[in-house]
Every structure is written in structure tokens, then in C-alpha cells.
């Protein structure tokens, strides 16, 4: 019984498993299995059960493939865990490239190395508790600022905005963040200045806005002098010279997610006139 069930499951899985290359750019759903290119070649012509004999049967030169967000490793295949479009990036040197799922969500899960905007909620002893939008507040030590020593404490109050990056972020431990890089320099991290407006958007929009060739940011930058800070946890902080300009900017950034490029250009031209 058990054998029959397992064989049936394998057949079903075999029917549904598609090659990763053939699905690039298409929508994938959680539960799908994807075959990597080398496996595709092996299973394609010999699908009937006969496998062509290869000379180097033992020495398979497999390249390391990285499965990014939305994918998990399942034996030799990739298992999709989020719905979205499958993307691939060719490797720079060595390796087999990166596969990931371009999904959309509002809830942020802390990831190591991400730069985020946090709000200081509590100050207890030597650490600050910073709310980053995850399941737990992250901890930030007062020594993790540039030029901070035991005598020279940073000037951080409850309610301040902090731009920092995670050093520890996994599902088993409380996330920890710092405001310096590995060399000890701030590189723009630390307390974000006075005034301005903080608002929340979806995570996908942040990634879209931070893409190297994003037109929205280029057009926004031509309107008037302003400053923006993007946090990977879906939070954006903007500041302009007057409150009205700040609010206009916030509205544009929130709305541009659902606008087509034509609508956006219309709005920008109207703004440029006024």
C-alpha cells in the first residue's frame, strides 16, 4: 500500500514538475516543483525510463544554484513557497545563478543584511528596542553607532527614527540591528533627522523604486529639493522644504504603485506646471 502511494505521488510530482527555465517570467504557485536545467536535460530524452549512458557518470560538474526568496530546496529540485513571477539572474562569475519569486506582501520578515527604518520604542539599560515591523522588536546596542564609546553615548531618544541594518535575523532569535558597517563607519546609517514624514507601503514597491533604472525616482527628483530614505521593511521617510511638498511627495509614492506610466506622467506634468 505504502509503495503504491509513494509511486503514485512520484508520478504526480513528475507530471507537475516543470523546468525552471521554461517558467521564467510566468506566475508560479506555492507547491510547484521546478527542475533545474541540468536535471531537465537528463530527464528529457530519457523520459521513457532509458537513460543515455554518459561517459562521466560519477563526476557530474554541477554548479551551485542559489534559491532566493520564495523558493526552497526540496531534494534536487526547487519548491515554490510564494506566489509570484519566477525570476532568474545570470551569475557574474562561477555559480549557477539565482532564482527567486517576485512576490508582493505587506508584512516584513527580518532578513540579515537588509537596511530598514525602525522606530525606537524603549530604552532599557544598554540596548534600545526598535520596532521594525516584524514579529518582534529588534535590539540595538548603544555601541553600534559611529564614534560611540561607553562614555560617549549616542543621542537617541524614544520615538526617534533609526536607519540601520540587521546583523542577526532568523526565525529562532530576536533580530539585532546596528548602525555601523563592518569597518565601523556609519555610511549614512543612524538617527534620521528632524521633521519629515514616515509612511508605509508594500515591500514590492520599495524594491521597484530602488531598482537601478527606476523612472519614478528620477522624475520625482526633478520636482523640487527633497530627501527620501527607503527602508526594506516597507517604510519610507520623506522630507521637503514645506509641509505641502512633503505631503504631495508622500501621496505620489503611495499612489504610483497602482498607476500606469501614462497616468504618472500626467500627474508629474500637472505638478511641474503648478
Amino acid at each position, binding site marked *: 500500500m505504502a509503495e503504491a502511494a509513494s509511486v503514485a505521488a512520484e508520478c504526480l510530482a513528475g507530471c507537475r514538475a516543470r523546468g525552471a527555465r521554461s517558467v521564467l517570467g510566468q506566475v508560479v504557485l506555492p507547491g510547484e516543483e521546478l527542475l533545474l536545467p541540468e536535471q531537465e536535460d537528463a530527464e528529457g530524452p530519457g523520459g521513457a525510463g532509458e537513460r543515455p549512458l554518459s561517459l562521466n557518470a560519477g563526476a557530474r560538474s554541477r554548479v551551485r*544554484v542559489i534559491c532566493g526568496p520564495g523558493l526552497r530546496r526540496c531534494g534536487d529540485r526547487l519548491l515554490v513557497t510564494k506566489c509570484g513571477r519566477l525570476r532568474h539572474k545570470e551569475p557574474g562569475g562561477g555559480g549557477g545563478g539565482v532564482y527567486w519569486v517576485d512576490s508582493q506582501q505587506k508584512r516584513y520578515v527580518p532578513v540579515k543584511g537588509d537596511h530598514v527604518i525602525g522606530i525606537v520604542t524603549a530604552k532599557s539599560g544598554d540596548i534600545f528596542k526598535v520596532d521594525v515591523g516584524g514579529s518582534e522588536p529588534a535590539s540595538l546596542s548603544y555601541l553600534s553607532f559611529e564614534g560611540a564609546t561607553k562614555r560617549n553615548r549616542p543621542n537617541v531618544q524614544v520615538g526617534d527614527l533609526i536607519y540601520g541594518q540587521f546583523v542577526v535575523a532568523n526565525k529562532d532569535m530576536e533580530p539585532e540591528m546596528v548602525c555601523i558597517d563592518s569597518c565601523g563607519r556609519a555610511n*549614512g546609517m543612524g538617527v534620521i533627522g528632524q521633521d519629515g514624514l514616515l509612511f508605509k507601503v508594500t515591500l514590492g514597491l520599495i524594491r521597484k523604486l530602488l531598482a*537601478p533604472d527606476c523612472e519614478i525616482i528620477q522624475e*520625482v527628483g526633478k520636482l523640487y529639493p527633497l*530627501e527620501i530614505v527607503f527602508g526594506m521593511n516597507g517604510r519610507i521617510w520623506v522630507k521637503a522644504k514645506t509641509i505641502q511638498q512633503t505631503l504631495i511627495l508622500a501621496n505620489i509614492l503611495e499612489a504610483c504603485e497602482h498607476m500606469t506610466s501614462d497616468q504618472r506622467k500626467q500627474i508629474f506634468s500637472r505638478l511641474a506646471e503648478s
Partner: protein
Amino acid sequence: MQRGLDSETKKQLEEEEKKIISEEHWYLDLPELKEKESFIIEEQSFLLCEDLLYGRMSFRGFNPEVEKLMLHMNAKHKAEEVEDETVELDVSDEEMARRYETLVGTIGKKFARKRDHANYEEDENGDIQPIKAKKMFLKPQD
């Protein structure tokens, strides 16, 4: 009368104790699974996937420090992709080597005493050689 046990009996007792302890240990009664080396690495970060720009931005001179940072961070990011081109040298390596060769001599000459100046004028080619050996006191033979 012998106090204590023989060494043999001691060893036997120790072995028996070890057996008892090792039998009490729990172990999994499964067949040995062959560990397959996996060629797939799992990463949860988007930094590897997409080249994202630096998160702080300033436009039209609102915050000059941030604008400098933007140039620095985005240029660094691009420089990592394009492998570093060799910086054009103002002075070639050969010239540097030649200069250093003579430099050692000239600076050394400055600190040499009058008697050591003789060592510096020996070479015919014009290259200055460093001091060979310091003259020590020679005890006179009687």
C-alpha cells in the same frame, strides 16, 4: 592480606562499567543514510537577487552629505560589478625603482660621518652604494 583489588580485577570492573554506560546510551536504529551534497543554496535576502540602489537619497542639494554618500555607495556598487580597472600610474614602476636605488644612498650619506664619505664615492657607474662595514677598533699586535 591484600587491601584493594588486583590490577586485573580492576580492569575487568572498569570494562564492565563502561559496557553498562554505553548500553544505556540511546541511539537511532536506522540504516545509514547517504548524505547527498546539495548544490542548491538557500538565501532569503533580496540583495543577491536584485541590484538595489542605496536607500538614502537626496535631490537638488537638499542634503549635501547624503548626495555625496549616494555617489559613493552607488559607484562602489557599480565598481564591484565591473572589475577594477588598473589605475593609470603617473610614475612607472621602473622609474620608481631607479629613484629608490639612488635615494637610499643620498639619504644615507646625510647621516654618515666624515670618515664614511669615502665609501660613498667608490662605484664607477655613479650609483651610490651603502656603507659596507663599520671599522672596528683593531687591537695592535705587540
